[in-house]
């Protein structure tokens, strides 16, 4: 019996964008990363519709992490005080496509470090590695507004991905990111309508839509991943059916979220297996699950999880 043709074709696609500026492009990066471009749902259509391979941005914290479980600290134990060395390790030993500098230490409830510190860290990491950077604030609006514009300036012309901006706090960072030639992360709290709204707001300020990456918020496996999963699927379908305000590539924060899960960090749970295996596997599982819904950039932490996920991406996005 002849099998009917079933592949659906779409008019729209996910925006394709290239992070990182090399010397020719006025920056100092030695490599660039291109993401997006999908013209179908995940595993739908032909190979040409798949778009760019998903990439991994490994987290480097501006200050020594205070609440990381031992299993996660172990690979980085000699570089935790030096963001530059830490970044170098992620790129050279663990194959990070991008480095995400996460400025946790500027949060008033953590180390409350100032802009001068953040600028120094940015410069250190830019010098240490040649891959493009993601620059991610602490999530405390007032402090991010003080510090992140300086961080943006310190990386001016490098075509970094900088964020995040939210519905309630987008003006200062959006304005400076345009001026400094960066790409912007718009951030919505697991709400597809707000996700669209914040893109409209950034766009109204003159930020080009094709330079935005969306962050829908991430739930770890077992902790609401299904919400993020379905929002990402809906976003992809919206992009494919021509909604320009939803056609951005997607970033998700797997490292932070999955290592908060009890299953990843609890040491005393013999029935669940060795914590040394459990943590990295929870991170792997969270990343793989979200990849099925359509993700372009994944923030990750543990080298073992990174290796497994990279291997998966290379097998499936050939």
């Amino acid at each position: 019996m002849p099998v009917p043709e079933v592949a659906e074709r779409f008019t729209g696609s996910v925006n394709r964008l290239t992070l990182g500026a090399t010397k020719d492009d006025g920056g100092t990066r030695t490599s660039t990363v291109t993401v997006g471009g999908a013209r179908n749902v995940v595993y739908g259509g032909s190979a040409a519709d798949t778009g760019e391979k998903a990439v991994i941005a490994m987290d480097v914290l501006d200050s020594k992490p205070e609440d990381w479980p031992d299993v996660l600290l172990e690979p980085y134990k000699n570089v935790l005080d030096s963001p530059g060395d830490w970044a170098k390790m992620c790129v050279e030993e663990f194959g990070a496509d991008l480095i995400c500098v996460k400025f946790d230490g500027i949060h008033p409830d953590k180390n409350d470090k100032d802009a001068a510190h953040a600028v120094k860290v940015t410069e250190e990491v830019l010098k240490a590695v040649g891959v493009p950077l993601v620059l991610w604030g602490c999530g405390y609006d007032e402090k991010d507004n003080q510090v992140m514009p300086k961080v943006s300036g310190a990386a001016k012309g490098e075509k970094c991905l900088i964020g995040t901006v939210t519905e309630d706090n987008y003006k200062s960072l959006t304005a400076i990111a345009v001026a400094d030639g960066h790409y912007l992360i718009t951030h919505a709290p697991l709400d597809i309508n707000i996700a669209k709204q914040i893109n409209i707001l950034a766009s109204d300020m003159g930020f080009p839509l094709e330079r935005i990456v969306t962050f829908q918020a991430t739930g770890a496996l077992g902790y609401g991943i299904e919400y993020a999963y379905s929002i990402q699927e809906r976003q992809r379908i919206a992009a494919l059916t021509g909604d320009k305000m939803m056609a951005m590539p997607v970033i998700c924060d797997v490292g932070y979220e999955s290592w908060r899960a009890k299953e990843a960090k609890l040491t005393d749970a013999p029935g669940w297996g060795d914590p040394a295996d459990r943590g990295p596997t929870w991170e792997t599982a969270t990343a793989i699950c979200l990849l099925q819904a359509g993700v372009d950039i994944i923030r990750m932490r543990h080298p073992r999880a990174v290796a497994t996920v990279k291997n998966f991406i290379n097998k499936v996005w050939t």
Partner: protein
Amino acid sequence: MALTGLDIFKLLPKTNCKKCGMPTCLAFAMALAQKRTKLEDCPDVSEEAKEKLAAASAPPMRKVVFGTQDNQVQIGQETVMFRHEEKFYNPTVLAVTVSDKLTGKDLTKRIEAVNALQFERIGIKIGARAIALVNDSGSPESFAQAAAAVKDSGDLALILVTQSPDAMAAAVAKTKESVPLLASATPDTAEKMAKIAKENGCPIVAKADSIDALADLTEKIKAEGLEDIVLNLQTQNLRDQLLNLSKMRALALKKVFRPLGYPTISFVTDGDADTQVASAISLICKYAGIVVLDTVEAYALLPMLTAVMNIFTDPQKPVQVEPKVYRIGEPNENSPMMFTTNFSLTYYTVESDVEASRVPSYILVVDTEGTSVLTAYSGDKLNEKTVADAMTKYGVEDLVKHRKLIIPGYVAVMSGKIEEATNWEVMVGPRECSMLPKFLQEVWN
């Protein structure tokens, strides 16, 4: 393909006799198309029309059941490509291999290791649901013997994996009461395998190396009188497996292409445990009815099973936790008392951050019909009355000596009314619960 009201109308007697209770045959046809009434209500409908309507209303993907009683599992009967369109119905069954090369104690040990892969998450039991016994030995006797051993261990449903009709017949003879799934019939063995399955009342796996060959094979098996079929597409790599599972799902659901209207089984038996986790989770999300694994590592099974649970959650129905007082650590009469809602995501986030604070505490869970704090507040499911009622119902006054209630920062506006309704002092907690550890450590103490 679902018939429209007009399609159905053409098959009806068109007498407008009103015996069905509807004013006209057309009205009846429309009601039938929307599944608001049943065909039996029309006393004059022809046999031919009955058959056509029954065929059209059969689900686009068949449900297949194997195993018995407690270990019975069912797969298939899915209706959508994306969970947000409706929901995914029958959670992917995870099966783990046992080789028939094992004998005696080694065999028992392996069976026990698979049976032990059971966990509990948010009060729900999850675990491996089947053992896939593989005829690695090539011997029908060894296969039958091992099959009997697995059957006697009794915990899980059984999948018999062999290419040999002789081995299959020998193993089925020992295990047919437990209704194993027979894997697999190939284009070469279709008739023999189908005969064994039919005689013993077992479902069967159809295995071929292309979608076209698979469609031909299921027609062949169906012609032998079998309808409980599971599809196994052999591919060179994971990428082809995933692309083709998506294609087969779309053919079954969108084109209602009957030869592929069955659930699927995929094998993930190479690579280390981490690699198996990655492959299996992609297959769980993207349309495998059964995933057969080789690993028995608890750390690998737990995330896969959790993924099944999450992806198959009904998106229309928020997952809820039981409203009551939860004890975190070993709280005493001086420990903090806070409340949140019974939306599971809200509760588990709060729980995780209270645990992280290492301050033993009580969390009172107020029944808000599974909505989050802000949603519950705006929908008036979280108000001073529901909070006060929950406090009374779960006896919080007897748990602590103090009279201080920590409320979520997002509903600080409720403070006054709660104080009036309960006579407790309200402490406004942080808006984001990631700030709870600091709050409990510094503000409470």
